[in-house]
């Protein structure tokens, strides 16, 4: 079959000498959905940025419908019918969805420079109906959900006339239901003749959605399969280059003393929604307490309160018996609470700073790194960074490289590496494997269990239900900002049953919920 877009011997070397793509022969058939999988740092995003004109190839050729193409900017790629939805949103929060959609290519009133608001809304609604991507044209971006923003990004690409649509990890921030919706919409795009490249770390998704799948490893494109002919085990072995164990071994332990005691926490967000509604819980040593719930039901805000990033409107927060409500993130950290933030791009890491600076951000002022008169002990700092990088398998050229130049999964390893070596008693871990490849997921999961076995109290929040269920010893379900159920033994509950609680269809009695307080 003829290819609509292909690369021949494409090589990309970044300015700092990183070879991100090595002689890649990539091919895209018209009208297909092609999955692109590979470990963190395998070069998937880089390859796509080259095709989208954002990065210039160092060597090799790009062929569009058999003809040589060269894009000097993404404007050229857009003109050629290629669109890309980035790993991170490119939207203006204060403008409406319709205004965002037409930005840069605005409809104008007849023979004038006046912005035509109604026409913008009409265009948005028309496109939205045509591709069955439902959005509120008049709402402002700040007021709509993540999944609607994602749809808007896809509509933006379509509005600019893209026939080839590249989606870089679109499902990383979506809930399972939203993912399913997105898949139906992408299938609709395929039916209407569009070609889609779909990058994801979730192999099940790739198998469920795509026609073919290409595997990248270490900058090379090593295989392309018809999806009907592979399974996720084969794919993950190919990606990692070794056997990956998709199942987790975990021995039972018994929980110890209470370390973090939270009582009656509440929070109201900027849109006046009560995100956390009188929540109380207790974290105990040697136990992973998982929080499940549909994204946006207060998990994020609860974590922000527990780690001091947000102030509760009521209640108390005690760590090791000390009251820390309103003490701020620094004091809470010093009291022994480490935090793997759900958003590594904004809260978890300082992107422009080096790997070393990020790893030492919470401890540089300690005596072992800062000597008398405030002079830094550079050798000790370098040694600490080097050992965490090795221990957590951060793939980088050196620890002085900026975190921004790392792939998503390796950024996450930097954050986890810092928090897990912080010598904390409590670990608040939020979305630890979002956008992380299978090999790294396996690694991170083992580290979380190891921390538990070392007697730490772990609070785990994840929108990956399978992940929370397999890692947690006991479970709490949050719905509409409340704890609606507590299961002492996570292994004894099915995901079907959890689903009923997550949706707010079922709710345990106060007595059962109170057991999470461990007040006997």
């Amino acid at each position, binding site marked *: 079959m003829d290819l609509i877009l292909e690369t021949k011997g494409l090589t990309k070397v970044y300015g700092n000498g990183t070879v991100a793509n090595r002689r890649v022969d990539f091919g895209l058939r018209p009208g297909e959905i092609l999955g692109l999988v590979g470990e963190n740092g395998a070069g998937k995003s880089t390859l796509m940025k080259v095709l989208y004109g954002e990065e210039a190839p160092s060597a090799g050729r790009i062929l569009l419908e058999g003809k040589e193409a060269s894009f000097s900017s*993404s404007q050229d790629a*857009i003109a050629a019918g290629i669109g890309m939805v*980035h790993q991170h*949103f*490119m*939207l*203006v*929060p*204060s*403008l409406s969805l319709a*205004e*965002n959609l037409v*930005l*840069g*290519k*605005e409809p*104008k009133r007849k023979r004038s*420079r*006046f*912005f035509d608001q109604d026409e913008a809304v009409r265009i948005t609604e028309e496109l939205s109906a045509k591709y069955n991507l439902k959005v509120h044209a008049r709402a402002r971006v700040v007021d709509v*959900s993540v999944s609607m923003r994602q749809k808007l990004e896809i509509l*933006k690409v379509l509005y600019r006339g893209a026939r080839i649509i590249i989606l870089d990890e679109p499902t990383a921030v979506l*809930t*399972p*239901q*939203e*993912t*399913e919706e997105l898949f139906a919409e992408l299938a609709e795009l395929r039916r209407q003749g569009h070609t889609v490249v779909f990058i994801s770390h979730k192999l*099940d*998704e790739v*198998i*469920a959605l795509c026609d073919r799948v290409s595997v990248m490893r270490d900058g090379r494109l090593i295989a392309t399969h018809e999806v009907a002919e592979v399974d996720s085990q084969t794919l993950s072995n190919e990606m990692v280059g070794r056997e990956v164990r998709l199942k987790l071994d975990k021995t039972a332990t018994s929980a110890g003393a209470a370390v973090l005691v939270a009582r009656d926490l*509440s929070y*109201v967000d*900027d849109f*006046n*929604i*009560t*995100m956390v*509604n009188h929540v109380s819980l207790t974290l105990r040593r040697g136990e992973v307490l998982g929080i499940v719930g*549909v*994204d*946006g*039901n207060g998990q994020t805000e609860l974590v922000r309160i527990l780690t001091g990033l947000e102030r509760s*409107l009521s209640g108390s927060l005690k760590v090791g018996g000390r009251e820390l409500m309103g003490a701020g993130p620094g004091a809470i950290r010093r009291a022994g609470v480490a935090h793997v933030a759900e958003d590594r791009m904004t809260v978890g890491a300082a992107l422009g700073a080096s790997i070393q600076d990020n790893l030492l951000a919470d401890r540089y002022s300690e005596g072992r790194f800062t000597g008398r008169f405030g002079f830094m002990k550079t050798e000790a700092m370098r040694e600490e960074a080097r050992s965490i990088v090795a221990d957590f398998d951060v793939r980088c050229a050196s620890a002085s490289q900026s975190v921004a130049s790392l792939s998503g999964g390796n950024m996450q390893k930097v954050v986890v590496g810092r928090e897990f070596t912080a010598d904390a008693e409590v670990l608040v871990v939020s979305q630890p494997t979002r956008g992380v490849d299978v090999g790294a997921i396996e690694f991170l999961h083992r580290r979380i269990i190891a921390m538990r076995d070392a007697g730490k109290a772990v609070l785990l929040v994840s929108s990956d*239900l*399978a*992940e929370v*269920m397999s890692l947690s010893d006991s479970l709490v379900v949050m*719905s*509409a*900002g*409340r704890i609606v159920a507590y299961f002492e033994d996570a292994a004894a509950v099915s*995901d*079907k049953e*959890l*689903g009923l609680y*997550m*949706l*707010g269809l079922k709710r345990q009695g106060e007595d059962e919920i109170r057991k999470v307080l461990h007040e006997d």
Partner: protein
Amino acid sequence: MIDFIAGVFGSSNYWYIVLRSTAPILLVTLGAVITEQAGITNMALEGSMLWAALVGVLASAATGNVWIGLAGGILASLVVAWTLGFFALKLNANAVLCGVALNLVGTGGTVFVLFSLTGDKGISSSLASKTLPFIKLPYLGEIPWLGKVVSGQNIVVYLAILAVIVVHVILNKLTIGRRIRATGANVEAARSAGIDPDRVKFLALTVSGVLAGLAGCFLSMGYTSNFTSGISAGRGYVANAAQVVAGGTAVGAIFASLIFGITDALATFLQNIGLPPELIQSLPYAVTIIGFIVVTISRDRREAARKRALFASAPAAAPREPVPPTRPGRGAA
């Protein structure tokens, strides 16, 4: 004292002066609003005004034509704004630092030029410069009290009101306004939509340059009839604070600059009752800064209070996105 103040507020003369004092600060505040919306702080407004005030006087004296003077003044102001744009956008220098540097050049440079040409370091009274016309409004002027306030003002006062409308239309009705706001709110998003953020910022700087130029010319060719050293008197800086009070809108700029205008005019009257002039002259600035602080704090407070009230009264929120949690392809763990 009370009687005196009441008398002042009742007099049409006072409100006439209020409008006159408000016009220049309004123009520069509008300039600050539009640049800030585009995501670049125009700290050089002060310098723009100074050069406009001087060049306006020089050009009108040299040609005997007030309009050539005005055009020259605006051009001088634009040169300052474009210089800021060149350093901040093309050479990626810090915009605020560049702005301050340009202001320092303006403070010293205008005096230097004045001295070189006239031999006087303080005032341009030896030059036969022109003043911009004062305009009697045909019917409005007949109305008792009100006519005395609004009629007979300098043309720039009326232009300032026109400028509010123009800036409002640019920001809210024109395509370029969306681009300005998009650039200010999220540069990356604007860039990825094919907008050139530097061009947008340059354009905003150009508009603010024209507005500051108009304000500067008014100071030396209408408000007074000479250029004096430091004639802008910090209005360019105050504009950046007033811009915050204005909440980033053209209409808000009216209120923000009225705060300044009302106290500035009051200061003129208060001088008559023997308060120390240094204290009085600092009044409008102090009041604007206080306004700035009050607005910022009350915005935060209102936000917090609203949340607390809502939390106390609100029923529990409904669960978001009520859809089944499982998905084919992923079984139980």
